[in-house]
């Protein structure tokens, strides 16, 4: 695809119609969730703050190359971090980019990874209410995700059941860097609750499980740390497959969010190949792993792969399955995908619409 094509697709007169599956809302200050927190936890946070399995309590030990991991142009004029201003979100993103529905994915505080499980549960409860009160009440295009403290299965399940009937919530949000691989049995009550409440589980990059980011130790640079999020997603998928989660919960739906796409066909082939060889170890897995993935797993498109060739990108989509791809921008983060320019491929209008809008509409049931 030449730059000319990109220009053409941008200037095309079609009306953008987008469902954005990954928008990160932020707080201007932590006091925003105080109304939804018990005093005990307000006091606790004031004294002890966050307590995670890494060196800084409130910063990342691989600092990003852009502050707040954000677009430099996404800082609100009135102050506050990127993603904290509804006004700017509307003006900079929802309105010009034709976003009809946007999913909120709150990441700050890392509630699911808090070592103090009670704090984690209290934070998820507060941040879930915050999503509705602070965002959705003012902006009906937005939808919330049920944050859960996955290491406290009971607390997580209670929160899922509490939000399950609320149409503001469209999915359950988990982070891949868990204490144990996500397919292990301690997490199964969460999958049960997801199925019971008919909510998909979205796994968005993040979490601090304490395990080194590679099997050979910690990486030095953000360049490495950014790369390996895709490998973490691979391990999550393998765990879900080989523990038999998909076999046990055939109606469970998983969304892998922001994990990249380029690895999916080779990885599912790798799982199939080694399942064939070693299936006597995992009799709970009845079918080739790629089949479970094809039927029960969806992937968000950001950060879009840029193989440098339209044909290679289309070949990749063919192999993953066009209907499995859900568009996401990651607004306001630095590796934002613009719906006009993200796909550097010669797509038909129908294909473009399917990716930007149609798939998510069907997947989340917005067409019903």
């Amino acid at each position, binding site marked *: 695809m030449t*730059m000319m094509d990109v220009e053409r697709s941008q200037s095309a007169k079609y009306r953008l119609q987008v469902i954005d599956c990954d928008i990160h809302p932020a707080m201007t200050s932590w006091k925003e969730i105080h109304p939804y927190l018990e005093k005990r936890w307000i006091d606790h946070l004031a004294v002890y703050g966050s307590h995670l399995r890494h060196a800084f309590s409130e910063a990342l030990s691989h600092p990003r190359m852009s502050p707040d991991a954000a*677009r*430099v*142009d996404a800082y609100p004029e009135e102050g506050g971090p990127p993603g904290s201003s509804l006004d700017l979100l509307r003006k900079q993103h929802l309105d010009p980019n034709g976003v009809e529905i946007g999913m909120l994915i709150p990441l700050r505080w890392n509630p699911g990874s808090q070592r103090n499980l009670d704090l984690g549960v209290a934070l998820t409860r507060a941040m879930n209410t915050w999503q509705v009160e602070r965002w959705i009440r003012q902006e009906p295009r937005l939808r919330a995700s049920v944050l859960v403290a996955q290491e406290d299965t009971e607390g997580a399940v209670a929160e899922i059941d509490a939000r399950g009937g609320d149409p503001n919530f469209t999915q359950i949000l988990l982070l891949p860097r868990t204490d144990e691989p996500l397919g292990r049995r301690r997490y199964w009550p969460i999958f049960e609750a997801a199925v019971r409440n008919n909510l998909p589980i979205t796994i968005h990059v993040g979490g601090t499980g304490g395990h080194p980011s590679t099997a050979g130790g910690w990486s030095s640079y953000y360049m490495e740390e950014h790369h390996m999020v895709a490998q973490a997603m691979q391990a999550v998928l393998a765990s879900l497959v080989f523990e038999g989660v998909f076999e046990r919960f055939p109606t469970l739906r998983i969304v892998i969010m922001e994990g990249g796409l380029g690895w999916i066909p080779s990885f599912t082939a790798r799982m199939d190949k080694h399942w064939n060889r070693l299936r006597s170890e995992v009799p709970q897995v009845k079918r080739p792993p790629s089949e479970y993935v094809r039927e029960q797993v969806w992937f968000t498109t950001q950060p879009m792969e840029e193989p440098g060739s339209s044909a290679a990108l289309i070949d990749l989509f063919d192999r993953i399955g066009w209907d499995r791809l859900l568009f996401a921008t990651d607004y306001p983060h*630095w*590796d*934002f*995908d*613009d719906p006009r320019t993200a796909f550097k491929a010669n797509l038909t209008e129908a294909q473009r619409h399917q990716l930007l809008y149609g798939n998510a509409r069907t997947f989340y049931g917005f067409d019903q």
Partner: protein
Amino acid sequence: MTRHVVATVDQIPPGQRLLVTLAGREIGIFNIAGEYFAVGNRCPHNGASLCKGRVVGLVEASEPGSYQFSRRGEFVRCPWHGWEFDLRTGKSRCEPDRTKVRSYDLKVEPGGALTDDTLRAETFSVSVEQQYVVVEI
């Protein structure tokens, strides 16, 4: 080729930039320590506005772990994906031959010299005493 008067020099202080639209093109005018540069505003990668990016220096390395910093403020880093562009040439740091923004000829001239017929001052009138930033496209 048309010459456009886009600003007086003191409208763009050192370290600042100004976004102008000339003949339908968005162009960023950058003042680097008193020297002016004009480049296309649109990032060739995904279309972000380069004028909103941070201005940075050139980081090179003679070997791993050795950071050589030079040309302070002579690159603009795209506000989205962080691609760096040389304000002097418009070339991207990572793919200088493949990925670049258009860079435009720019001169600083006194008002008294601006008598050319082809000159266009789109937003203000020119006075003889002032110094002006003139872009040719």
